[in-house]
């Protein structure tokens, strides 16, 4: 159990009434001291008892018509701090995460300095704890400076107060096959895993967009699907050979889905992620040369989108990762080939996944909970995230209004990034509340207060 609340924090209790767990039969759910205390009929009875016998104030939340889910867990977030605080900070990115329904995010290592030492990962972890809007888990770089030449001190990062288990050079591919093999082997010693950004660098030199019919007409250098697929094929074989755990970031092509399906059938310990934007958008959008659609990996074709959706539905793809990549305005308000790659995604992820997977009938809310929470938490081996909605489990929860629709307005986002490719689109679903360890960091769809009473590790 968690430590008893400090004297500075009053004991808090919430009775969530009539919410539908995983979109199924409505039930009450009682939160007490960061945990789920009771579910169903017992919840209201226990709330009654707490109020009358222990004089505790129990806040009632009418959640009729809302869906209750475990808080979302994003294995792929760029928080930009340290180094690019003009683009995002841990604080603003954490706010965006909370609003988007994430109770945990994993901050990629491509900050400045790169998160390739214990010092940097501890800094990011500490900033996350201080922010208190979501759990922030830093990802450690695989190689020093993301340069792909020399292993970073993975052990030191694992043993640091940040307890890093996930290592990635995301943004760059660990393209050297020997180094990748060693990295896969070495992380076994810290019970970690490698998250690979699959992009063969020589096949994508100067690449600007998906190579295909659209790039041919636009005269933009092509980014062939094979540059992703060849690395995935190599790495699943390496993972099999050394018996290690491999996670594939942002799978974007139909061919990648096929290779991962094959690898899983062979029993290889590989997991895969897809971004919300790759589930919805295609390279046709590039025709106007608006850099808001420039992203790595690039937007692909509608056939790829279909294959990604099918792969996510059938379990070939395990998780949603947002690849939330905020950029300052000037990085996108320029020539396409000069523009930065990346899109914001934390505050639109739920709606886009709902639009593409649930509204289409491809997926249930239970499967939604798996791909956005349960499985990413399992991949990282988090004890307090992605847990069942049952008594005794941590109260990392969200309430979702499935009937709401909203028109995406990046100006209204909590992220500093305004580079949302969904700007102006009307999408279903809305995060009404986010509970982080029992504390409502989001209520009524708006930021409430952060969880700041926790001991921040030195």
């Amino acid at each position, binding site marked *: 159990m968690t430590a008893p609340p400090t004297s500075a924090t009053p004991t808090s209790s919430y009775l969530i009434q009539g919410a539908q767990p995983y979109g199924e039969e409505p039930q009450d759910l009682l939160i007490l001291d960061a945990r789920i205390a009771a579910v169903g009929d017992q919840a209201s009875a226990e709330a009654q008892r707490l109020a009358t016998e222990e004089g505790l104030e129990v806040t009632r939340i009418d959640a009729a018509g809302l869906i209750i889910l475990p808080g979302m867990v994003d294995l792929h977030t760029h928080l930009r701090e340290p180094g690019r605080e003009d683009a995002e900070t841990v604080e603003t990115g954490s706010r965006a995460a909370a609003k988007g329904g994430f109770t945990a995010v994993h901050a990629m290592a491509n900050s400045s300095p790169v998160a390739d030492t214990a010092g940097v990962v501890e800094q990011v972890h500490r900033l996350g704890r201080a922010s208190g809007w979501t759990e922030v888990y830093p990802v450690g770089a695989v190689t020093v400076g993301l340069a792909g030449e020399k292993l970073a001190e993975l052990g030191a990062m694992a043993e640091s107060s940040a307890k890093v288990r996930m290592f990635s050079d995301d943004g760059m591919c660990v393209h050297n096959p020997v180094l990748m093999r060693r990295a896969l082997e070495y992380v076994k010693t810290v019970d970690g895993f490698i998250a690979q950004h699959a992009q063969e660098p020589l096949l994508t030199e100067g690449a600007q967009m998906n190579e295909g019919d659209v790039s*041919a007409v*636009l*005269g*933009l250098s092509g980014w062939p699907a094979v540059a992703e697929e060849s690395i995935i094929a190599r790495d699943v074989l390496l993972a099999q050979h050394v018996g290690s755990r491999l996670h594939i970031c942002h799978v974007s092509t139909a061919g990648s889905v096929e290779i991962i399906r094959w690898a899983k059938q062979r029993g290889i310990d590989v997991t895969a992620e897809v971004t919300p934007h790759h589930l919805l958008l295609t390279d046709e959008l590039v025709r106007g040369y608006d850099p808001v659609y420039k992203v790595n990996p690039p937007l692909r074709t509608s056939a790829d989108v279909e294959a990604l959706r099918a792969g996510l539905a059938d379990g070939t793809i395990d998780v949603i990762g947002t690849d939330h990549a905020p950029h300052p305005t000037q990085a996108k*308000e320029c*020539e*396409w080939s000069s523009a930065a790659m990346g899109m914001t995604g934390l505050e639109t992820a739920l709606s886009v996944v709902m639009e593409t997977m649930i509204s289409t009938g491809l997926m249930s809310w239970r499967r939604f909970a798996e791909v956005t929470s349960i499985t990413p938490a399992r991949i990282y081996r988090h004890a307090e995230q992605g847990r069942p909605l049952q008594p005794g489990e941590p109260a990392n929860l969200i309430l979702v209004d499935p009937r709401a629709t909203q028109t995406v307005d990046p100006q209204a986002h909590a992220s500093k990034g305004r580079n949302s490719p969904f700007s102006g689109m009307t999408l279903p679903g809305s995060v009404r509340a986010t509970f982080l360890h029992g504390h409502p960091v989001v209520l009524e769809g708006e930021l409430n207060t952060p969880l700041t009473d926790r001991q921040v590790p030195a």
Partner: protein
Amino acid sequence: MRHLLSTADLSHAQALSILDTAEEMAAVSTREVKKLPTLRGRTVVNLFFEDSTRTRISFEAAAKRLSADVMNFSAKGSSVSKGESLKDTVQTLEAIGADAIVMRHWASGAAAQLAASNWTDCAVINAGDGTHEHPTQALLDALTLRRGWAAARSEDPRGMDLTGMRVLIVGDILHSRVARSNIWLLRTLGADVGLVAPATLLPVGVEKWPVSVYYSLDEALGSGPDSGPDAIMMLRVQAERMGGAYFPTAAEYTRRWGLTDERLRRLESHRGAAGQKPMILHPGPMNRGVEISAAAADSPMNQVLDQVSHGVSVRMAVLHLLLSSSERNPV
């Protein structure tokens, strides 16, 4: 028509309108006083982010013959080289009172971005954007082809399109803005287009384009005297492609895809439907001895200098049509 960004945007009627207007402009260029008052008081800015003296002076001559004020803005040695953004540069030009921006840019899509932005109300003319398009080059090529096509028939070119004409485009299609603009425009005008290139210099997906594709120039040139092309357009081989493994050596390129003396002799024996010899076009500058032999460069079939003079006429037509139809009032 508010901007000229891509020949893919041009309808058949718009393309003919530009070409027919260019014929009128060509007449001006042969007069002793080569000037029209059409754009008096209007300002045209040549905004060049990439060196191209030929294209710049062609646009400059065109604007001046229409009595426009012309400003040349070269990105080299300007604020742009100190890191100024395209947005700030263009807003500066807008504040100076430009009515049209003729832009050459190294980035594909830069002209389209400018036209779609709210940075300026100027008419935007794409004078070549990266490896995307170069619409005025295609228009001047079409004007050249149409004149030759009409002359062989002793007809007035005005109002004609290129239906039935067979045009080969030879060389680096993948990186060529000239090729892309030509393909779309020639197809709109009814010509049959054949592309000839090593597979490395053709874009992925080219098989879906409305063209024939040949890896062999000899095959594309046809076997009989009346089976060849009506025109052959040789693209410049950029030196930087040679080291990129697009083809083994310049010598091999020349042997397989160059307009050599031998292939020139085959072309000379071709006769079109009206008995005419094929036309040879090149957007310039030519690499003599690489994609085109000296004899082919100097051949009377070669239209290169006509292309240059047609460039001025076409650019006059485009400026005239864009600026005299715009609602923006002169300062």
